[in-house]
């Protein structure tokens, strides 16, 4: 079962979503990632039939959900939805929620709750009597209760404590892979996206900026936004429009697929401190002020300012740690990624 979205557009002043295209295969999890307000939840609501698009088509398998003069209401789409706030009915216990949502027998509902990781002792509890993680598991079980043809998860782990996430992520992955339904998950959490995604789609301002396998996007992002959002890379714009473009750190070859403006996506390990004698030609050393410094699992990181762009430099273990306000010389330690800064990448 494949979900196909074509030229989907939705306008509600002042927000516009799309036009966008999307494909999600059955048994795989597509994760939509991007900043809040980027249109991810709206896209899920359009797929679920909770909003009607202004244009475009949505097809699941052979069924046209929405298109010109066609709109299948939410109640007839057989879509499972885990809402951002969970939307668990406060007056129904866990078992009753699943039975109502799936019109299922007690035995089936109990099995589903157990599969979602909710122990039998909790099945008679009201949502208000469950912990965040338990409530989340209930919401997942309820979404699966009607044997959905499409599973939509809107920030499914948002209110879950970090130490409970691993278990829930395993459950979500297992549930997404064991069925034939496509699963689409929305998140703005980078770690969560990377753990859950078979396919990753980066969205911002109502548009899809980049898509691909999670590992691919992390290794070689093509869009500056993706590099910044997924890899926390610093972005240094490149000047010019040709195949060779320059910046204070040197000049670089721009790949063919870059349409329009390009930039360097600089990871902390891409930059190093250099001595006055080092740096020439295509790998120039520049003098920059230190804005801040902090320590994380990779070591000491310096935040420096290069032409108004904040970049991170990873210090070597034995290097002295400059204070904020000092001037340091930096240069590239390895070839950087070149990314596109505008439009959707190929």
């Amino acid at each position, binding site marked *: 079962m494949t979900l196909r979205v074509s030229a989907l557009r939705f306008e509600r002043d002042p927000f516009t979503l799309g036009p966008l295209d999307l494909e999600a295969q059955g048994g795989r999890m597509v994760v939509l990632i991007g900043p809040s307000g980027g249109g991810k939840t709206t896209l899920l609501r359009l797929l*679920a039939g*909770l909003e009607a698009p202004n244009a475009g088509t949505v097809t699941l398998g052979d069924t*046209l959900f929405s298109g010109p*003069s*066609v*709109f*299948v*209401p*939410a*109640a*007839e*789409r*057989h*879509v*499972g*939805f885990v*809402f951002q*706030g969970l*939307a668990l*009915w*406060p*007056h*129904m216990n866990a078992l009753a929620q699943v039975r*109502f*949502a*799936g*019109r299922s027998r007690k035995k089936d509902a109990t099995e589903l709750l157990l599969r979602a990781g909710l122990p039998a002792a909790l099945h008679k509890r009201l949502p208000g009597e469950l912990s965040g993680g338990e409530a989340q598991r209930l919401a997942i079980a*309820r979404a699966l*209760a*009607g044997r959905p043809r499409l599973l939509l998860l809107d920030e499914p782990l948002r209110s879950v404590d970090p130490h409970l996430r691993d278990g829930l992520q395993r459950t979500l992955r297992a549930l997404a892979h064991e069925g034939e339904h496509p699963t689409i998950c929305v998140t703005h959490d980078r770690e969560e996206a990377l753990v859950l995604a078979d396919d990753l789609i980066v969205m911002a301002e109502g548009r899809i900026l980049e898509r691909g396998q999670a590992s691919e996007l992390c290794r070689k992002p093509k869009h500056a936004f993706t590099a910044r959002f997924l890899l926390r890379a610093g972005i240094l714009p490149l000047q010019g429009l040709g195949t060779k473009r320059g910046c204070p750190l040197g000049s670089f070859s721009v790949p063919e697929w870059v349409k329009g403006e390009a930039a360097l996506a600089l990871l902390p390990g891409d930059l190093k401190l250099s001595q006055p004698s080092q740096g020439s030609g295509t790998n120039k050393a520049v003098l920059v002020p230190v804005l801040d410094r902090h320590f994380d699992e990779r070591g000491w990181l310096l935040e420096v300012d290069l032409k108004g762009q904040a970049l991170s430099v990873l210090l070597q273990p034995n290097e002295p740690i400059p204070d904020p306000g000092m001037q340091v010389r930096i240069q590239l330690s390895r070839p950087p990624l070149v990314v596109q800064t505008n439009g959707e990448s190929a």
Partner: protein
Amino acid sequence: MSMPKGASKMQGSKTFWILLGLFVILAILPLLYLFFGSFFPEGSFSMEAWRKILSTHTERIQLLHSAVLGGLATLFAVLLGGGTAWVTERTDLPFARVLGPMALLPLLFPPIVVAMSFADLSTATGLPVVALLLGVSHAPFAAALTARGLRSIDGRLYESTLLARGRLRAELFLFRQCVADLLAGALLVLVFVLSNHGVPEFFSVKKKTWFVYSEAVFLRWSAPGKPGSLRAAEAIASSAPLLLFIGVALLVCLRARRKGTLVTMASDFRPLPRRILGRGKVFALGFALILPLLGILMPLWRMLLWSAGSTANFGVSMHTAIGSFRRVATELMGDLGYTLGMAALAGGLLVFIALPLAWEAAKRRPWIEALSLIPLAVPGILLGVALVRLWNDPHLPLSRFYDTPVLLISGYATRFLPLGVLALANAARRLPTSFDEAARLSGRGPIMRWLKIQGPLLLPTAVSVFILGYILSLRELDLAVILPPGNDMVSRRLANIVHFGNEDVGGALAVLLALGAALPIMMRILLTGKAGRADL
């Protein structure tokens, strides 16, 4: 496949339009009928009745009396009701969980009974006394709405203001946050006080001290020697300023309420922190007891004494009390049963009409809330007159119900419909849309969604609205006086019995009426363990 969503919408719309039509027939049509009739008092067009508005000195004085009385009674109600809500919701007052709901108990006795029991204790009379008694009787509205306002404020907002700007600013912020609810409560009190003619009349009869507008409207209607149509024309014309005043006040109240905070069931919410009273605890406890003492214990005590023969020459005795209750049981039990039955049916009809109207008001058509306020904007007396004029017209099919309880039940339900619509619309707004969306996605139809999701979630408020309609119907004197099927209502019987000097029976009847009024609340506590809240 194409647009089947419309089908369920159409079905819902049909029910809505039918009920809106019923509301128009019950509430709007009688008033329109009366309004246009006032231009044709004797078959031909005449502006005579309207020309009289404010043309005389007496008329202006009465309007001034009403405004002053309304203002003062509202002030008392806000001080007592709002103050009690503040100490029970905002402080560590002992027994706050009991004292809070107790502030609502004065609704159990009709204002006239509170007035009679006060007159039994003291010879004091005049404006301050009438205002205080009406204030006490209606303070539960101010208490309920202020408490609701305070419960809706997220404690973190208060705490952040406290940390940033200090105690005084934080309290001012709190006041600004709940002023809309306080104002709504005050205006509700004002509306009921302006409509009340029983208490001012009672004190006027005792000593000619105070004469208010609603009483003048009633006297015009019941003026002897005038044809009915002329009386009605004068009644509607003379009540126009009052109607205008109340209407504007209600719209202001609705607007203020909409600006208030709204906590949905899915909101991440932290209640306000409670302030430590310290030594002020005793004073606060005393203050919180004023309303229950004046509004429920005083009338209960005096009415029990009446039933025991305190007003007769031979003194108080248990024997007399038993005899009084026995007389009520043998002679007036039918009336009491009839009264409770009428009130229960009125409460039921109120919920039946208010629920779909409130749902539409909350989800799609907010103008319904403003429309539903009309029956409350009209003084009870005038609504009664309007119902009599319309339902007594032999040319209309409604006339066959004129002498039946249908008229009375419809009158009560119409009168208190705004409270039902406001409370239920507020409850419906608190339901997150995602609750219904989750049910829709599970493939359930609109009826099943109503039965399993919205219905149970709105049920506590619907029960509160039923109880409110029931209790207010028991208290309502104006409609009972005007509408023929209201002759046997206990509120009217009580006034007559006391008027003719049978205080012992009157006392017993008043106590039983209060017990009857408390019946659904007691049943609710027994069944659910909670008294419930009228979230107006």
